[in-house]
């Protein structure tokens, strides 16, 4: 019984992570219409109910920047150098497409429930 519960929990956790992965990218792109550095972005997302681990968010910012969806610059703030991120022009275009896709999926699923 305990064994099957663990399997079910693992299965749920894997599916949950899969579901969240794409949504997190969309949320980060949405939030970065405004400039943030890593930690403040994490706080801003958490305030809107989306908690993201440090080990997920910070590498994700790097990846999105490498893909040309974000722009970044090092700047000093409160006597500390920080890397600030913002949506790039390409990022804006991709964000709009992703948002449309997400809204369509959402509407379809809502219509099924």
């Amino acid at each position: 019984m305990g064994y099957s519960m663990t399997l079910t929990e693992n299965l749920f956790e894997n599916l949950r992570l899969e579901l969240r992965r794409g949504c997190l990218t969309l949320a980060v792109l949405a939030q970065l219409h405004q400039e943030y550095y890593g930690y403040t972005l994490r706080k801003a997302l958490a305030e809107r109910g989306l908690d993201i681990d440090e080990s997920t968010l910070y590498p994700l910012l790097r990846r999105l920047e490498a893909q040309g969806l974000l722009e970044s610059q090092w700047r000093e703030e409160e006597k500390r150098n920080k890397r600030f991120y913002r949506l790039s022009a390409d990022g804006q275009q991709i964000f709009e497409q992703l948002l449309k896709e997400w809204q369509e999926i959402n509407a379809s699923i809502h219509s099924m429930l």
Partner: protein
Amino acid sequence: MELLDRYVEAIKKYLPWERQDDIVAELKANLESQLEDKEAELGRPLTKDEAGEWVKQLGPPIHMAARYQPQRSLIGPALFPFYRYVLQLACTWALVIWSIVTVVLVFVRPNPVALEPLTAVLQAPGVLFTTAAWVTLIFAIIEFASGRYPECFKNTPLASNDWSPESLPTAESSGKKRGSFANLVAEVIFGFIFLLWLLLVPAHPYLLLGPGAAYLKASPFEPAPGLVQFYWAAVAFNVIQLGWRAESLLRGRWRAEQPIQQVALKVLGLIPSLVLVAARDHVYIALKHPELDTVRYGGTLNSINQSLYKGVLLVCAFVVLQLAWEIGKRVLNAYRKRQAAR
């Protein structure tokens, strides 16, 4: 905070050297801001235990560093279905070929050791492992090359969705593989002609040997009882096969495939070969006048019989493996159908 410094230094070790300073500086700035917030909230610095707990929940350094690396796999999801298919095929055929070679070697060696079959069985995992290692290596190279030079793989099945439905094999349930009336009639007619020919061979050996029959008549050799028994076993098998097919024809059973009948015929087909293997002293050819010719032809006769025995063993091994393959395939199909029906 010393613990935080140690943590980011530990992460640095696992990062690619060209980006490690940049990543660590950014990560450290983020974590220091977070720490400042925590301390401001508490109104005091974190205790050693609290700091340890906080750093612990950030995750092991190697895991954190791994998130900064591009996702890598030895064989990626696009290539994996091909890899799995080829691996199954390669391992199966490696095992079949290795089994045949081993059986032949065991019997052909002049002085077979009693433990040799056991040793051979114990070597099987090694053969499978080596085959799997080679297939994996080749696919890992393809994966690496397709990532590095994607333009070279653009039009291959690995990267392209372009395929033709015409290339699909015939479905087993579509009826094309089922027997037809014409096929069964042809099998019965040719089976009857073959049986007639087989029955005439002893009285008219030229039907089998052609002009060679005259040489056989003049030679000092003749078929030994073992060969005669094989002949009658072959006749009996052909009679059964012909009768079975004629009965299917009369009862109109040519439309459906009859797996049990097919497997049973293959098992029966083994009997003549086994009669040869079991022949007394493995003698298939004997001398017409042993009291006169043994000195002159005895050596030649022995080597002919030995060669025939080895050949018969080889054929038997091959037929047994083929039968095992056929039965295995049918059992697997039956199992799949049962699973699908649930």
